C-alpha cells in the first residue's frame, strides 16, 4: 500500500485495494463491509488503550496485512459460480431435439422454438436469481395472481365439466376454430395459447418452484404472527391447488399438487426451522385436502389411474389413449437390441388398423388412408415425434440406442438435483429444488408414457420435444437452477446488496 495523508485516506485506500480484487463488482462493498467493521473495532480498541485516533487507525490498517492478498482470498468466497456440466447437458438435449426434427424431415426454421428457448435459458441464468431476489414483492404479486387464475381455471373448468358442459379448454378450441378475420383469429389464438396451454398444462410446473416466492418471506419473517400468516397463506394456496386438482381431469394434476405441497412445506420448515409437531398440522391439513379430492373427483382420478396401470381396459378403439399404450408395449416387445423392428407389410397394415388387437371385433370404420400404411412411422400413435421419442428410438434403432437415451435422461435428473444440493442459500436452494422437481416429474411421466403407461396428459420431454410454451417454461426452470447456483456466493435472500445470510438484522 502506498503513502496516505490521513487515517481516513488510509482506510479508503486499503478497502479499495481489497475491493479491486473482487471480480463480481456489485458485491464488492458488501463483501468488504465485514472487514471494514473489523478494522473499526480494532482501531476503537487501540483508542481505548490510549492511542491517538490517527495512530490507532494506522496501526489497525497495518495489522490487517497486504490488501491484495486479503482481497484475493475474499474473492474466492464471493465469486460467481459457473455450472458447465448441467448447462452442457441441457444444450446437448436441445441440439438432439433440433437434430431429430431435421432427421425427421423438418427444415431448420421449424425448430425456431428451441433457439428462443436457448436465449431464455441464457438470460434467466445470467439475471434470473438476481431478479427473483430484487423483485420478490413483484413476483409475489404475480404468483398470487397466477395462482388465482390457475385455480380459477381449474375450478370453473371442473364445474362446467361436472354439469356436462364443455370445459374452458374446449370452448377456446371451438372459438379458435370458428374465428374469422385476422384480428379475431389472432386474439382467439392468443387466448387459446395463454389459457389452454400456458395456464392449464405448464402453469402447474411453474407454480412448483414459485410457490416458494409466495410463502418463504412470510415464513422467514422471524415473528410468530407473520409465520402464522405464512402458514395460513400456504394453507389457502394448497387448498386452492387441491380444489383445482379435484376438479381437474387427471392424476397428472394430482402429482403436480403433491409436488407443490412438498415444496411449500419444505419452504416453511426450512425457513422457519419448525419443530416436527408443528409440521404435523400442515401435513394433516394436506391429507384432509386430498380426502376431499378423492371424494369429489374419484371417478375422474380412477379413470386416469386405470389408463396408467391397465391401459388395455381403456383400449376400446384405435383412437383411445389406452390403445396407444397397448400398441407401444407390443412394439417395444418386438424391438431388437440393435436396429429397427422388423415387420412385414401385412403386420404393418394390421397394426395400423388395429386388427392385431381387436381381432375383427372392431365396430368402427377405418379411413382408407389408414389401410394404405406401409411404414413403421405410419403405425405409431399420433404426435409420436412429440410424445413417443424414447419409444420411437427403441423401435427404430434398437434397445441399445434407447438405453443410451434413458441413461442420458437419468444423468440429466441426477445433475439437476446434484446442482441443486450444491446451493447453500436457502431461497436459492428452494427455488432450484422446486424447478428440479418440476423438470424431473415431466421427464419421469414422459418416460412412463413411452413404456405404455400414460399418466394424464402427455407432458413434453423437457428441452427435447417441442411446443413453444413448454420449451420456454422448462428453459426458465432450468435457468433458475443455474442462476441460483451462479449467484449462491454473492447474493443473499433479502436483497442483492445484503450479506449472504437470510436472517433478519437483530438488535442486541
Amino acid at each position: 500500500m502506498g503513502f496516505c495523508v490521513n487515517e481516513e485516506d488510509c482506510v479508503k485506500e486499503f478497502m479499495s485495494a481489497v475491493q479491486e480484487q473482487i471480480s463480481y463488482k456489485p458485491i464488492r462493498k458488501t463483501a468488504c463491509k465485514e472487514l471494514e467493521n473489523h478494522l473499526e473495532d480494532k482501531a476503537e480498541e487501540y483508542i481505548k488503550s490510549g492511542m491517538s485516533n490517527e495512530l490507532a487507525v494506522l496501526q489497525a490498517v497495518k495489522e490487517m496485512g497486504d490488501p491484495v492478498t486479503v482481497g484475493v482470498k475474499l474473492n474466492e468466497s464471493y465469486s460467481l459460480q459457473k455450472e458447465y456440466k448441467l448447462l452442457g447437458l441441457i444444450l446437448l438435449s436441445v441440439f438432439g431435439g433440433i437434430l431429430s426434427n431435421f432427421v425427421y424431415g423438418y427444415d431448420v426454421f421449424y425448430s425456431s422454438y428451441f433457439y428462443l428457448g436457448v436465449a431464455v435459458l441464457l438470460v434467466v441464468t445470467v439475471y434470473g436469481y438476481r431478479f427473483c431476489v430484487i423483485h420478490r414483492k413483484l413476483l409475489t404479486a404475480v404468483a398470487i395472481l397466477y395462482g388465482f387464475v390457475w385455480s380459477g381455471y381449474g375450478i370453473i373448468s371442473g364445474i362446467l365439466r361436472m354439469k356436462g358442459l364443455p370445459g374452458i379448454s374446449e370452448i377456446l378450441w371451438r372459438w379458435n376454430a370458428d374465428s374469422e378475420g385476422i384480428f379475431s383469429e389472432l386474439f382467439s389464438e392468443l387466448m387459446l395459447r395463454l389459457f389452454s396451454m400456458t395456464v392449464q398444462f405448464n402453469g402447474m410446473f411453474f407454480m412448483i418452484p414459485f410457490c416458494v416466492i409466495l410463502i418463504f418471506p412470510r415464513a422467514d419473517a422471524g415473528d410468530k404472527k407473520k409465520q402464522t400468516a405464512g402458514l395460513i397463506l400456504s394453507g389457502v394456496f394448497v387448498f386452492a391447488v387441491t380444489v383445482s386438482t379435484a376438479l381437474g381431469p387427471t392424476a397428472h394434476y394430482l402429482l403436480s399438487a403433491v409436488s407443490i405441497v412438498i415444496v411449500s412445506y419444505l419452504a416453511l420448515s426450512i425457513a422457519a426451522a419448525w419443530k416436527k409437531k408443528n409440521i404435523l398440522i400442515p401435513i394433516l391439513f394436506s391429507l384432509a385436502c386430498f380426502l376431499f379430492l378423492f371424494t369429489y373427483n374419484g371417478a375422474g382420478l380412477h379413470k386416469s389411474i386405470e389408463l396408467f396401470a391397465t391401459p388395455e381396459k381403456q383400449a376400446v378403439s384405435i383412437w383411445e389413449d389406452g390403445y396407444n399404450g397397448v400398441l407401444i408395449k407390443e412394439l417395444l416387445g418386438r424391438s431388437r437390441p440393435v436396429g429397427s423392428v422388423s415387420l412385414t407389410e401385412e403386420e404393418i397394415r394390421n397394426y395400423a388398423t388395429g386388427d392385431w388387437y381387436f381381432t375383427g371385433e372392431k365396430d368402427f370404420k377405418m379411413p382408407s388412408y389408414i389401410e394404405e400404411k406401409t411404414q413403421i412411422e405410419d403405425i405409431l400413435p399420433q404426435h409420436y415425434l412429440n410424445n413417443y421419442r424414447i419409444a420411437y428410438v427403441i423401435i427404430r434403432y434398437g434397445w441399445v440406442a434407447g438405453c443410451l437415451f434413458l441413461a442420458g435422461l437419468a444423468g440429466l435428473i441426477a445433475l439437476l438435483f446434484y446442482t441443486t444440493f450444491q446451493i447453500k442459500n436457502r431461497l436459492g436452494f428452494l427455488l432450484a429444488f422446486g424447478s428440479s422437481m418440476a423438470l424431473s416429474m415431466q421427464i419421469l411421466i414422459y418416460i412412463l408414457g413411452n413404456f405404455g403407461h400414460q399418466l394424464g396428459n402427455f407432458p413434453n420431454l423437457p428441452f427435447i420435444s417441442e411446443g413453444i410454451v413448454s420449451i420456454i417454461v422448462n428453459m426458465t426452470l432450468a435457468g433458475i437452477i443455474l442462476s441460483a447456483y451462479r449467484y449462491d456466493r454473492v447474493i443473499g435472500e433479502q436483497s442483492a446488496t445484503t450479506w449472504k445470510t437470510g436472517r433478519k438484522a437483530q438488535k442486541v
Partner: protein
Amino acid sequence: MDKKMMAMGTSMLILKLLETKDMYGYQMIKELEERSENIFSLKEGTLYPILHNLEKNGDIESFEKTSETGRIRKYYHITKSGSRALAQKQEEWGTFRSAVEKVLKAPVYESVFDALIEKGGSMYGILR
C-alpha cells in the same frame, strides 16, 4: 508455532470458539488470543476465508446483529453439521498429538550399539 500446523487446526479452533457462543470475526481473534495466552494471533486475511469456507460447507451459519453503537456485525453460529465436524477434527487432532508426543518422548540413540546396550544391559548381552 509452525504455519502448517496452525492452518490445520485453525478451523477446529474457530469451531471450538463458536461451540460456546455466537461470535463476530474480531471477537474471535481476541478470544483466541486470550485463551491461548497470545500464542495464536490470527490475521484477518486468514480468518475470513476460513469462516466463509466453513459457512459454504454448512458447518457454520451467519446472521446480522446491530450493536448499540449502530454498527452492523456479522455473527457466526455453529450448526449441527459443524458440531459433528468439530468432534471429528478433535479426534484427528488427538491422534496426531499423541503420535507427535510418542516421537518426542522416545529416547534418541546415537548408534545402534547404544540402543542395544540400553536394551540388553551390556556388551556381554549383545555378544551372547
